[in-house]
């Protein structure tokens, strides 16, 4: 995939990671204690919450930072010369002129080669005709 499409994909990946992070954390976060008057929330299941709730933010934020660094690496890999549009157009004009010249040279060579081929074929035909005529008929 070309570099610009990769950059676009990376932007979309960063967006997806961001909203997955926030969505998951909001969904799975334990309830917050609002005031000392309210009773403590009942203790949640130890198996699911303790491992996931502490690890998930770390893993997801690590993934997000990695994706952002990947984006920076891709931006650094952009083969962008600061020549701008005019430099590119000038180069295109030069290349077109050179292409035309080379094309004409090719055409000339091709015509000369075809002419020589015709000559050789003609001479060969004559030679074989002579050969056939010199053979004594049975």
């Amino acid at each position, binding site marked *: 995939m*070309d570099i*610009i499409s990769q*950059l*676009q994909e990376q*932007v979309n990946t*960063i*967006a997806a990671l*961001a909203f997955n992070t*926030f969505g998951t954390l*909001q969904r799975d976060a334990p309830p917050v204690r609002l005031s000392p008057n309210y009773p403590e929330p009942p203790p949640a299941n130890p198996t699911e919450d303790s491992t996931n709730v502490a690890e998930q933010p770390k893993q997801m934020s690590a993934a*997000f*930072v990695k994706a*952002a660094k990947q*984006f*920076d690496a891709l*931006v*650094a890999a*952009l*083969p*962008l010369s*600061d020549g*701008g*549009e005019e430099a*590119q*157009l000038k*180069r*295109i004009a030069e*290349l*077109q002129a*050179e*292409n035309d010249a*080379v*094309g004409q*040279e*090719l055409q000339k*060579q*091709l015509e*000369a*080669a075809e002419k*020589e081929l015709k000559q*050789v074929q003609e001479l060969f035909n004559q030679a074989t005709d002579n050969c056939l005529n010199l053979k004594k008929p049975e």
Partner: protein
Amino acid sequence: MSTATYPPPPPFYRLYKDYLQDPKSAPEPPPPIEGTYVLFGSNYTTDDVLPNLEEQGVRQLYPKGPNVGKIRSYSQKAVFVPTVIYFKKELRALNRELQLHILELADVLVERPSQYARRVEEISLIFKNLHHLLNSLRPHQARATLIHILELQIQRRKQAIEDIKRRREEAQKLLKEALGTLEGQ
């Protein structure tokens, strides 16, 4: 242009009554459309160019073309604007801003959860700017591809010229040799 639920077919078929006998008596096909045209009630344009962000109602966060003193960011600071957009620098700057904004959103969600809307809006603004910058790189890529193709074609043509020259010389040599052997007999 009339609109109806079940419009009849256009009545132009009558003009082609004598087409088989005389092809010139019927009108010519219409010329290709230029500019904008209306199709099923909506406007389309034949000029395929990327509309810049203001036309889509999105604020542009990176500096624009040859306008000096335009407002660069939403902090209302006027900054001198370069005449060329430095894509790499702006992309990296936007990336950093995006990460800062996501951190801000996380903070807001913890402390003042009711104020998330503005932060989310700013994050989506940054994403739109990012995608617009990347899209405006495409014409540059197209021109670079064209340059590459032209260079390849020139190289192939030069190679073909070399091949033809070599073959012609070989043929000449063979003919001379044949002539030599024939005369030697």
